[in-house]
Structures are given as C-alpha cells and as structure tokens.
C-alpha cells in the first residue's frame, strides 16, 4: 500500500527534522564564549552585552530557549541577522532561489550528462574514447570544486571571454517579474527570451564547476554498471534474439544500470547545495550558500541556524520525494522499509 509507505517516510523525515534542530541548537548553545559579546565585539560595554542578551533571550534556560526557537521557526521567524541587520527570513527568501537555480542546473548536468557519458564510455569500452572519458571523469572527482571554478573562470571568462563570470545577470538588465525566483524560468514565462538567455549564460560556468565532481562520479558509476549489466543473462538473451546493440545499450541495459544513479540523485542534489558556496564565492553568485558562509564567519547565530535548518528541510523533502518516486516505480520495495 503506497499510502502507508508515504506516511512512514514522512514520519521518519519529520523525526529527522526534529533531531537536526536539536542538534544544531545544542551546538549553537554549546559553543564557547558569549554569543552576545562575540557579536558586539570586545569594545562593547557590559550593559550593551546584557541588553543584547535579553533581546536574544539568552538569559532563559536552554529547553525554554529551544522551544522558543522552534515555535518561532515554524512561523518562519528566525530572528534578526546580526550580519545584515535584517530579518533572517527575508535574507533567506532573497538568496534561496539563486542557489536553487544554480543547484537545479547542476543536478540536471550531473544526471543527464553524467549518464550519457557513462553509457558512451561503456559502449566504446577499451577504445580511446572510453579512456579519455574515464580520465575526464576521474579528474572531475579528484579536483576540488573551487579549483574548477577558478579554472573555468580564467579560461572562459578571462582568456576566451565567452561567458560572464559574475552575478546572475548582466549589470544593465533588470530581473524578470518574480514568479518562482528562478530567473531563467521567470524570464521564459514572461516571454523575455533575451533575458532568459542572459541568465542562462550567467549560470553556465558556476553550474558546470559545481557539477563536475558529481558528474565524474556519476559517469564512472554508470559506466561500471553498464558494463556489469551487459554481462547479465537477460542482456545475453536480447542479443541472442538479434536485438540491435544500440537498443540494448540505450534501452535494455541502461534502465537497470541507471537505477543506482537515480537512487542517489536526491543525495546528490543536497550535496550540491552543500558545495554551492564555493562557486558562489568565486562567481559572486548571490545565493544562500554564500550567505551561510558569511553568517558563520560573522558568528551570526540566527542566520546560521536558519540556513542549516532550511538545508535540512530541503534534504528531508528531497529524499522523501525520491524514496516515494522510486517506490512507485519499483513496486518491489514498497514492502520493506529500508531504515
């Protein structure tokens, strides 16, 4: 019964959320030093520090503080950012779509390009194409994202000058009317082709840099799975019945081979969120990840906790959805609840 499965998944997701909120809250309160003093700096007077403490509610007991945090968070109130002096929820609402757009494009690259390259390498196994693709994939995996970011920026931005290297849009353009916050989609919805194209050009380099490690890994995984599936009896059967190699590779071998990749696409999506700050810093992308880093460097507790919670919620949602979709597509695993 898929309904039961969905409920169970949602249930465990919710538990995880609670767990993470406790974890992050505990961490924040365990850290050394007085948050208020740290925020104000050593030159502040004790009255100022005390005032801030009262304001932040730091004088109450820990469980009470936690409850306060949770009740406010549920309403979307994460307090004021000490870094930007604005409501954290506003900051996040502004920066989240930027990161989302970046990560969605990256995930598409990873999922589609990764699989295609993997299949190609498997089909031409042993040839130079295969070896070249494997090399590129390995390089992708072992090179840090920020190195790719800097490299791409130099190559395509400075030297070749093909693609822009800063921000989401060229300076002289205004963002499209806000529907989703994703500039490309919003521009297309508004019928502004040029704007969409400009946004697309801006997202290319950061998205590629972000996706390369995962792309390499996906390509390698797909390649290995394809090669293994090619040896399976059911593929041999297809061959014995004269099904053309093309069909075998792209249809009958690909589907079972790509299931492991698809299973982790949810995890990949969230992992990309984690790494996004690296490319956001290099390419001046106004995203939530970069915001998150700033909150850390500035010891902005509210901003930090909000960022982490948002990421966790995203993780839980994405994984639950992925699990549900997979269970729907593969009725076999509905019965078992993989813990």
């Amino acid at each position, binding site marked *: 019964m898929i309904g039961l499965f969905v409920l169970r998944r949602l249930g465990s997701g919710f538990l995880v959320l609670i767990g993470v909120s406790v974890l992050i809250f505990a961490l924040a309160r365990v850290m050394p030093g007085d948050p208020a003093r740290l925020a104000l700096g050593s030159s502040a007077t004790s009255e100022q520090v005390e005032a801030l403490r009262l304001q932040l509610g730091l004088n109450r007991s820990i469980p009470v503080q936690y409850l306060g945090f949770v009740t406010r968070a549920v309403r979307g109130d994460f307090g004021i950012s000490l870094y930007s002096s604005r409501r954290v929820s506003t900051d996040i609402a502004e920066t989240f779509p930027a990161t989302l757009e970046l990560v969605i494009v990256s995930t598409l690259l990873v999922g589609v390009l990764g699989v295609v390259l993997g299949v190609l390498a498997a089909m031409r196994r042993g040839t130079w194409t295969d070896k070249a693709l494997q090399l590129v994939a390995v390089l992708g995996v072992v090179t840090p994202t920020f190195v790719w970011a800097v490299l791409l920026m130099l190559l395509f931005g400075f030297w070749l000058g093909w693609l822009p290297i800063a921000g989401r849009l060229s300076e002289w353009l205004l963002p499209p009317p806000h529907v989703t916050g994703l500039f490309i989609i919003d521009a297309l919805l508004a019928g502004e082709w040029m704007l969409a194209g400009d946004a697309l050009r801006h997202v290319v380099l950061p998205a590629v840099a972000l996706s390369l490690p995962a792309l390499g890994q996906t390509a390698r995984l797909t390649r290995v799975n394809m090669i293994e599936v090619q040896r399976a009896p059911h593929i041999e059967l*297809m061959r014995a019945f004269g*099904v053309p190699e093309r069909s075998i590779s792209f249809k009958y071998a690909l589907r079972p081979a790509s299931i492991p990749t698809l299973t982790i696409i949810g995890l990949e999506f969230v992992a990309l969120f984690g790494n996004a700050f690296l490319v956001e810093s290099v390419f001046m992308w106004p995203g939530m990840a970069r915001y998150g880093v700033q909150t850390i460097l500035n010891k902005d507790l509210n901003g930090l906790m909000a960022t982490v919670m948002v990421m966790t919620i995203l993780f839980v949602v994405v994984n639950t959805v992925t699990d549900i979709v997979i269970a729907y597509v593969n009725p076999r695993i509905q019965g078992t609840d993989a813990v």
Partner: protein
Amino acid sequence: MLEIRDLSVSFRGFEGKARVIENVSLEVRRGEKVALVGESGCGKSLTARVVFGLLEGGEVDIDGRVMLDETSLLPADQVVWSKIRGCRAAMIFQDPLAALNPVFTIADQMRAVTKNQPVGCIRDMLERVAIEDPDRVLAAYPFQLSGGMAQRVLIAMALINEPDLIVADEPATALDTRVQRQALDLLVEAITANGSSLLLISHDLGLVRQYTDRMYVMYAGNIVESGSTDQVLGGARHPYTQAMLAAVPQLDGALPKGIEGHLPDYHQPPPGCRFQPRCPHAAQECHVPVPLRLVDSGHEARCVFVGSSDVRSQRFHE
C-alpha cells in the same frame, strides 16, 4: 541442418590458455531432436553460445566451422547474426527469472524479440504455451512470475518467430519436476508441429530419454560418445557414459556410485583422452589423442578399447 565441425574454443587468462572445447563435431538434422549431455563445466553451454555468436571479447579464440544449412555461422559477421538470431535459430536460457529483464514488462520484452509478426501474435503464443491469463502476464514484471511461468514465457519467445532450430540450454534445471515436464511437453509439441529441430542441452538423462532421438555425450570439452538415444542409453560404450548411467539414482533405494575425481584443469589437460585420470580402465594407449570409433551403425565412442578384441576391453564391456 545445423553442423558443427571441429569446434575448438580456448580462453586466455591469468594462468595461460584454457582449452575448454576441443574438436567438437555434432549435427542436428531437420526435424530432429538431439541432446547434448554432460556434467557442469564440460563445455556444453559454451557450444550453444558459439552457435549464436555470443562469445566475444579479446580473450577468446574460436576455431572450426559451424553451418546452419547454407549459412556459415562460424566464421560470421554481424550482418549474418542479425538475420539468424531469433529468426532462424532461437535459444532458451537456463534460469528463466534471471533471463528476463527485471525492469521491463513481459510485453515489452516479447515485443523486443518478435520480428515481423502480425498483431496479437504475442498474446496467441502465450496461450499456446498454456498461460491462462496472457494479459495479466503481459502487464507483469518478471519478479511477479513463478519460475514455471517465466520458463513458458521464454519458450514463447523462442517459438514466436517460428525458427528452424531451437537450442534449449538446461531448459528446466531451475524448475521442479512437474513443471519441468509441462514445459518440455509444450516445447516439444510446438517443435514437432512446426517441423523445427531441437538441440537440447542437459545433464538430466531422464529428459533426454523422453524427448530426444539422438544424443551426444560431452566430457571436458570433447564429444566422447554419440548415437541414437536408445543406443547410447541402452548400450553405452564409453567408460564415462557408463559411469554416468551408473550414477543415476534407482528407485530401489540403492545408493548410486559417483565418479571419483573431477574435471581436468583446462590449462593442462591430460594428453590424449581427457577422462584418463578418472577412468578405471586407463592404460598406456590412452595417452595419445583418440578418435571416435565405430561401435555400431550410427553409434560412436571415443575410447581406445572400443571395437577391439582385447581381453581387457571385453571385460568391461559386459
């Protein structure tokens, strides 16, 4: 109709060259049902795969000739294979549930292997193999089928393009006895009706006795005995065949005698007769390659003691 002549297959690997099949010749005439019998590891499945050109890769060396009527299957190229596979010759694989793609429906897979047949043909074929609810089976995934059902699907796949030759590789090993018989009855019935030929690969002598006209006995990559099924099972001459028959459990409850020893190392097979190390009658003469010798009309065995008037040979041919 199917003629395999002097087939030799070897694999190059970690420990050198493994000569797994040596100078195997067999034939299946039109309308005949022929068995290829032997224990696991003797090379019979490999032989089947050679017919369909399924052995590939840089580490395999194949020599010999294989002909299907006028068409050469060895040597051959992709063009030839694409015309033969599934159309003029079809194969039934050993483990039916493993031989079906787990993420595609039966309908998808049957459509993939059907060539140029009228609409509705698939459904009819499923009915012909005694599947009562073809629509349910067509919409199902392999894991939803029982072993027997899956086997019948494989048989349907093999029959659907009305091939001249069907090669069944251990078609019932994965099933229980009752289901085995049903499946094979269906298969043989359809084959006889179409006038096709059957090459049945099996280690189950009971099936061989029931369904085939002629048989070949294979040991360690060599054909050691051949003839009509009655001739071989009734009057086996090769020590291996005799031992194999003696090893079949009898209903009177007496424990059968197994055969001592195991298959030879294909990297360093014994010179001459490969059964030597396990043969109770092995002698000096067995160290050189032995040709097939005539026992009777149509009955041959690869043993030096066949057709000889040596006292020793008479002793063990009683």
